[in-house]
């Protein structure tokens, strides 16, 4: 098994707010992330695909193809967007790093044409990142 990782970056804004919480509860749980106007990050996304290289090409998956999938599924949706309001897959959810990483996994997993999605690693900052790992890993 060989693991191939492609990294992309996107910039987006978000806020954390649960409409079922009182204003005090929202501030207590989410702190300054509850600021109603939102705030932004430069997200760094690393996507790892696992598989056996095709003996004819020597590739697990053509990187150009992966690049196009990431552009279409992730960057076109999320780059320079307000995640709460402009990304339908995040509507009604709290766009924490966990939630965004899970959403990215769900968008990519069925669309990887060869090999399989092994890991989605999403950095919100250099000191905070979330891994989604396929079951059994």
């Amino acid at each position, binding site marked *: 098994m060989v693991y191939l990782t492609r990294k992309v970056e996107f910039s987006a804004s978000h806020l954390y707010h649960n409409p079922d919480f009182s204003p005090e509860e929202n501030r207590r749980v989410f702190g300054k992330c509850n600021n109603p106007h939102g705030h932004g990050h430069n997200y760094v996304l690393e996507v790892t695909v696992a598989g056996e290289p095709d003996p004819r090409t020597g590739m697990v998956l053509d990187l150009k193809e992966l690049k196009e999938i990431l552009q279409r599924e992730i960057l076109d949706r999320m780059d320079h967007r307000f995640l709460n309001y402009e990304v339908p897959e995040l509507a009604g959810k709290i766009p924490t790093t966990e939630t965004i990483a899970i959403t990215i996994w769900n968008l990519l*997993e069925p669309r990887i044409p060869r090999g399989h999605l092994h890991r989605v690693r999403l950095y919100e900052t250099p000191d905070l990142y979330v891994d989604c790992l396929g079951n059994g890993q």
Partner: protein
Amino acid sequence: MKRLISTSIAWATANEPAIERMRMRVVLHRRYHFAASHRLHQPGWTAEQNRAVYGKCSNPHGHGHNYVLDVAVSGPVDPATGMITNLADLDAFVERQALAEFDHVYLNEQVPDFRSVVPTTENICRVLFHRLRAYPHARLESIGIQETASNSFEYAGEQ
């Protein structure tokens, strides 16, 4: 409080697939920084043995590093908050259990865990794993430490 949580879960489950049905495991990594000095030295060995094994790391007055600590925790993502654990809780716990005692100190002399344990980064990983595994809000997966940009270590407990 109880009412709020049950309402929120009902609100969230209407909007996203149940965690149980997810086909992936989610692990949150948080990095922390501490600067400390240490000396690699076994008191039961001769000076020559210590020099042979530890080289300049055995210099008698110690030396220091900017350590980067990577704490990885896993668990279900609470639909009401979108979180495995609240970072404020994790930060406070790591500060109390680790950073307050490890930052800007001489590990050999000032951290009791290293009175009889050589503070190699391997052993610092193990000590921090045991100190942080009691975190009550998520499961500790692993401790990673970068001693320098070139050397890093990871400990995930005994399998």
